[in-house]
């Protein structure tokens, strides 16, 4: 600057400085954070497939009954034990046909319809239990991170719940409380409420720990100080400033929670403490088919593959989300 020739007038000098500050090329249109996240997410092939598959399965089980409107509980004993339609490829005389694409079970119930209605229950349990766990975990994490005097006790409580034997306790709770809930809400509703709440109440701890850690770091930042200095109340600070900033770890643990909830529900049904047989879920369908799997392997394979692919898709989605939401990885 000092080397430059002295400008003729002060006004000219101003123009000179502003010109130096101006960008040379045309400025790019502003990009929002979520657009960046989406661009990074799209690069992760597995995550896109996983997320797509999860959407597909969810749509299939939500709208499936309207397209394939066969009653999954309708007995048709004359047409029992049909094989899936693909067995016709190598065995022309097989008992199969397009009337029941996935075959029928030992009571003649359509397996495709059962898979759809079972998937409905499994996915509903998964989404609801995950939501419950997220709400509890986020609440505990935010409160523990924000209010210092509650931190110690809430975290000790979280540690205590973390050292509970989860699967035995879930088994215990489901077997012991099945009767009273069934008599109040009916065998299906009671079991649904019980399983969702038991899974939700036993899987919020990781979310709480992650959220608390992030809140502890965020709380010391200047924008929170600024918000407080203009008299924002604690509730407003949490809702307007803290929660939007911890949304990424919450989303990542949501995917993990969805996967574990689906697996736990299926495991419970498999062990015989889940839903009753006439209200099948994927796990129950699998468990019921195991004794006859030598003759009808597809009845084990179909629900098993449905569970595995859904969980695989959710896990890949979580992997991609973790990469996309991490600003250190994003843009590389």
């Amino acid at each position: 600057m000092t080397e430059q020739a002295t400008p003729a007038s002060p006004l000219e000098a101003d123009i000179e400085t502003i010109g130096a500050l101006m960008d040379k090329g045309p400025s790019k249109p502003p990009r929002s954070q979520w657009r960046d996240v989406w661009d990074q997410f799209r690069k992760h092939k597995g995550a896109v497939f996983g997320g797509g598959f999860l959407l597909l399965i969810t749509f299939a089980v939500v709208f499936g009954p309207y397209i394939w409107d066969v009653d999954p509980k309708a007995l048709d004993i004359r047409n029992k034990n049909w094989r899936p339609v693909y067995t016709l490829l190598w065995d022309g005389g097989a008992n199969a046909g397009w009337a029941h694409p996935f075959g029928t079970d030992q009571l003649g119930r359509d397996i495709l319809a059962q898979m759809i209605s079972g998937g409905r229950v499994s996915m509903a349990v998964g989404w609801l239990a995950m939501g419950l766990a997220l709400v509890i975990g986020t609440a505990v994490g935010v409160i523990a991170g924000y209010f210092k005097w509650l931190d110690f006790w809430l975290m000790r409580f979280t540690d205590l719940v973390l050292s509970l034997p989860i699967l035995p306790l879930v088994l215990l709770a489901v077997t012991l409380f099945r009767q009273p809930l069934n008599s109040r809400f009916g065998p299906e509703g009671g079991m649904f409420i019980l399983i969702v709440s038991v899974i939700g109440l036993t899987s919020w701890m990781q979310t709480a720990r992650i959220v608390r850690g992030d809140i502890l770091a965020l709380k010391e930042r200047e924008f929170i100080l600024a918000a407080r200095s203009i008299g924002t109340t604690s509730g407003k600070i949490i809702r307007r400033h803290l929660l939007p900033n911890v949304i990424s770890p919450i989303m990542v643990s949501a995917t993990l929670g969805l996967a574990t909830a689906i697996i736990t529900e299926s495991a419970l049904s498999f062990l015989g403490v889940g839903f009753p047989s006439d209200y099948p879920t994927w796990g129950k369908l699998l468990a019921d088919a195991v004794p006859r799997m030598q003759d009808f392997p597809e009845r084990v394979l179909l629900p098993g593959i449905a569970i595995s692919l859904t969980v695989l898709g959710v896990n890949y989605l979580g992997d991609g989300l973790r990469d996309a939401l991490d600003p250190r990885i994003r843009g590389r």
Partner: protein
Amino acid sequence: MLTFTIRRLLLSIPTLLLISLVIFGLLQLAPGDPMAQVPLTVPPEVKQKMREALGLGQAWYVQYYKWLVQFFWIEPKVFVDYLTNSSTLLGWLPDTSLYNGELRVISWQTRSPVMDIVAQRMPQTLWVVGLSYIVGIVIAIPIGIYSAYRHYSVFDQAGTFITMVGFSIPPFFTGPLLIVIFSVYLGWLPSIYDTTHVVNDWASFKVQFFQMIMPVMVLALQTTAQISRYMRGAMLDNLNQDYVRTARAKGLKEGVVVMVHVLRNSMIPVVTVIALGMPAIFGGAIITENVFKVNGIGQLLLTALFANDLPMVMTLTFIFAILIVLFNLIADVLYGLLDPRIRYD
């Protein structure tokens, strides 16, 4: 470090007490009558007497206190007696005979002490679970090392995909699937684990080996998937560090750099993950034992639950809790021992 270990040990006592209270409370809240299986012809006043004989008539805190005394005072005495009396390890010590006929934790199903049954079932679970864990670790660590070393190679991509699949397929699906393939179609392996089988020569060892393959592999798949992911992540974190470049620059062989310098540093988090995963494997064994009909403690818990055998359920769940607290403690202590940068005090 020692003070930290002692402090953690002391802190685990109230934790365990609280956990036992939670389990006990859950069992108390639950409806369900141990006399439900008794025939209806038994008159109600006799049933009431039977209930009282099981210790059910008292207030809950009396029941809880009695359970605590039985579990933490009388059972250890029985165990010490067993050790000094009939075990081969400590049998040379003089017989202590601490136990003189106090009431132990009694199962409502079999009317025999719960801990005796647990001691009978434990070896099966330990064999299957322990072996599967070792097999899983032995497979997982090389996969993790190699896929981190050849980051983004075909092996890495395939390894990541396979571990992801192994992570996602639940054991109650892999179990029946393996049974259908290897027992039904191929006929190579037995589908049921025979716990009465005695190994005394090569042929019987082979039978034992073959019947253990499937349950061990089903459990090991989960372990492998989890640990190789951690191993790969830890190796990747370390491979780009400055000390690795220094080691290469001073002319160390690539094998020494990776297998000594990087591996030792990457093992620190992995060892703690291995310790923390131990209790979860016991939980997973509940399902695997059910699939392959292994009569271990997982299967014992299930049958006790269905039979409404509350003392058995309480004790078994508490044993699972002890395992979790113990391995959490081990993980913390190991972390401090392995990584001198960690200071707990």
